[in-house]
Structures are given as C-alpha cells and as structure tokens.
C-alpha cells in the first residue's frame, strides 16, 4: 500500500503563508518578475476557480481577471520547504520516495502497524503545523492509484481507495486526472469514448493492477544515471539579434554542462529546440564521437545544429538545450589545449561552488541580462 502526498498549489500556498494578505485572493506565481511577459508557474485555488492554470501566459491570465495578485517565483523557498517536508517524512521511518518538488510517497506494505488513514491525518497535521500550508493525501494499493486518490478531494483532502470504493472512486475520476493521461495518450483514449478512469479500467484492467510497476524508493539522492539533462528558457519577447540568441544558447549549454559535471557524466548527443513565429518548433540533434561536459563544446555543437535552420535569421521566443547519450565520465585530457581547458573548467567550478553558482560565467552571457 502506498501513501501519496501532494502539496496543494504548493508555490502559491507558500506565498500565501509568507504574505497572509494574499490568502483567498486569486493569486498567480509568475516564472519571472515581469508580470505581463511571463507564464503562470502556479495558481492558487481562487485563481484556478477562474480557469487560470499553470503554463498559461500571464497576459491571458490577466485577460480573465485583471485584479490578479502576482508574485514572482523564488525557487529557494520552494526547494527549502520541499526538502524540509521530505526531512519531516523521513521521521516516519517508512520507505520514502521524493517524487517531485511537491509530491512524496511512502510505502506502507512493510509497516508493522499500518493505519494508513490516521497516518495520513498525522502527516497532514504536521505539515500544516510546521509550514502553514496544506497537503492532500491519497492512499491505495499502488502509487498510480494513490496519486489519483490524492487528486480526488483537493485541497486538504484525504482519500483512501480500497476494494470497497474502487469502482465508485474510478467512476468519479475523469481520465485526465490519471498520471500520464493529461496529454496525447489521454486525448486518444477520450476520443475512443473513455471518459472516466473506470472506463479505462473496464478496457485495460491490468493498467491499474500492474502499472506502473513497483514502488521505487528514492531517498533524495539517486545513483541511477539520468537519460538526459536539459534546460530551456522562454524569452520575455521574441528575439532577432543572433548574438543574444547565441548568448542564451551558451548560457543554457553552461547550465546543462554544470549539471553533467556535478553528476560526473559526459554526453555525446546534443539536442537543440528552438521556437519562434517563423519556424514554429525546430528540434534537431547531433551525435558526436567524443563525449563532453564542457559548456563551450556543448554550445558549439548546438550552434552547429542551428545552421540546419531553413530561415537565415528567424525570431526566437524559446530555446532548449538537451544533452543525452550519457555515460559516466572517465575523460583524461591528453593534448595540452585539452589539459588547459579541463583546468579552466575545474577552476570555474571551484569558484562557483564556493561563492555561488553563476558568480563566474562566460562573458557572452552578459547579453542575456
């Protein structure tokens, strides 16, 4: 049995706790400080009730309700709170999974005294007492159902799905509430007439019984190698200046490379994603023989991919750099230039580790500021 904890409108709730004046008013947390040129990264329940949701451009959100309260996102407090909740949950001495910044899972099967509902209540109470924010808890036989259960009575809900209410709960839940059904897969199934989770169960019962496999304990640090590392950024406005676009690609490449080095990884494949009014979505990738985790090299590879663009100088609104084809780094520089480059990267990493990420950076990235 799995207990899934899903924080209610996590970022927005923290901002309400910080500034109680915002409580209950329609509030959005924007990705950036410029309220009209960013996207909603979180909305509280009052804003959600107006049809505003995360991912929506703020301009659109303000067209729905012009008096929206706005706070620019500050990841530090969300990450700290998330880590503190994780620490709090460790105290229950059960296998624990850090599923995302606002989702946590506890495995109850091995628990000697499983009283899942009272445990759920206790967790909710402790989180509220310590952080003044609410969480919804779902309990079921696997994490897919537990996660679904956590969504059924939001906010501040506690839902147990067991044999006695399995059909009722699944009938009540629209298919898009199920993890993995929010996108194309869900649309295809909905087009086939499956509107609720119960409809899916009748057609694919094994999906709920077996899928998606066992509970993976993740104590916050994974030793598994990720499949890819990426960073993307939506510019406040479309940008035509090639130097500025290049600067953003360099910055994103550096960010990706830093994460590769932190995990002792190298990559052979670089992907570049560009979005703009003339080109729509441009995605291309290139695999090289030599693995790298050098931001400059990743950037050069991405810029080479960019030459495949049919437009000479398109306007760009969003950029993404991804590195895949990852392997554990065992790079030994041989040529003197490579040794010098490696020394430089290590020196930069040491400075940034000591004084904070981004203290020292490639000069071209000044154009992104």
């Amino acid at each position: 049995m799995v207990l899934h904890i899903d924080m209610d409108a996590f970022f927005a709730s923290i901002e309400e706790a910080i500034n109680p004046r915002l409580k209950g008013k329609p509030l959005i947390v924007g990705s950036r400080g410029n309220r009209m040129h960013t996207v909603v990264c979180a909305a509280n329940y009052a804003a959600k009730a107006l049809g505003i949701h995360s991912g929506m451009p703020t301009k659109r959100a303000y067209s729905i309700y012009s008096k929206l309260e706005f706070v620019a996102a500050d990841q530090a407090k969300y990450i700290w709170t998330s880590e503190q909740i994780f620490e709090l949950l460790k105290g229950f001495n059960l296998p624990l999974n850090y599923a995302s910044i606002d989702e946590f899972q506890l495995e109850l099967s091995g628990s000697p005294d499983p009283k899942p509902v009272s445990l759920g209540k206790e967790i909710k109470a402790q989180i509220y007492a310590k952080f003044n924010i609410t969480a919804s808890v779902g309990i079921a036989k696997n994490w897919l159902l537990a996660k679904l259960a956590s969504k059924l009575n939001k906010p501040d809900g506690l839902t147990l799905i067991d044999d006695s209410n399995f059909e009722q709960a699944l009938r009540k839940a629209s298919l898009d509430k199920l993890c993995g059904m929010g996108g194309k897969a869900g649309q295809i199934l909905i087009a086939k007439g499956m509107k609720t989770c119960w409809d899916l169960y009748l057609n694919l019962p094994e999906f709920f019984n077996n899928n998606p496999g066992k509970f993976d304990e993740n104590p916050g640090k994974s030793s598994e190698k990720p499949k890819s590392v990426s960073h993307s950024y939506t510019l406040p406005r479309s940008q035509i200046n090639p130097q500025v676009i290049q600067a953003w690609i360099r910055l994103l490449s550096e960010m990706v490379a830093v994460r590769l080095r932190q995990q002792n990884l190298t990559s052979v494949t670089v992907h570049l994603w560009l979005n703009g009014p003339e080109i729509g979505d441009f995605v291309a990738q290139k695999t090289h023989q030599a693995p790298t985790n050098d931001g400059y090299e990743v950037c050069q590879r991405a810029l080479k991919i960019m030459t495949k663009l049919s437009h000479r100088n398109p306007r760009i609104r969003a950029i993404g750099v991804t590195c895949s084809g990852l392997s554990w780094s065992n790079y030994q520089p041989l040529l003197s230039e490579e040794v010098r480059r490696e020394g430089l990267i290590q020196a930069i990493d040491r400075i940034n580790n000591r004084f904070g990420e981004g203290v020292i950076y490639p000069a071209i990235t000044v154009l992104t500021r």
Partner: protein
Amino acid sequence: MNQNSFSPKARWDRFEPEKSGFNPDALNERIEVLALFKQARIFPKSFLWHDKEYIIETITYNWQERIGQALINYFSVSCAAQIYQISFDNSTFRWQIDKILD
C-alpha cells in the same frame, strides 16, 4: 515517468536576468537587527532601517538557501501591517532587507 528523476538541487533560476528575474524589486540594503539565537534557530525581533526602528510582530515564514559556501537565512516578517523580507548571511554575519512585500 521516471520516479527517480527529481533533484531538488537542480536550480534553474540562478542565472535569471537580474532586471526581469525572480527578484526584480530587490532592495538589498544593510540593516541592524536585534535577534534571538535559540536552539540553532534565529528569531529576529526588530530591525533598524534608515534610522527607523521596525518592531517585528510575526515571522510569517522562514527559509534557507545555500549560495556557494554561504548559508542565507531568509525571514518574511510582519511589522505594522507591512511584510518585509530580511535575510542573514552566516558567512559575513550581515543582515539585509531584501524587499518590501505588498
């Protein structure tokens, strides 16, 4: 869905442009603070900013961030119906007012 993919340390906003970044209203001015340090926790009680004393009525929230080797303790505090964000850098022992919240 890769359940092991989340790393809370993966920060994307450190490189945000300063002017349009996550902290566009930053004041970052040095202040004098009277604080209680108790059981490894910090409780600011009042602060002096531009020669005016602000008595802290409530600490509405607090959080920490590690920037390099420095650990920054942030506090959102309520003084006379106004919320302020102040912070303490444990590497320099410097208190500052970060911003005024609406």
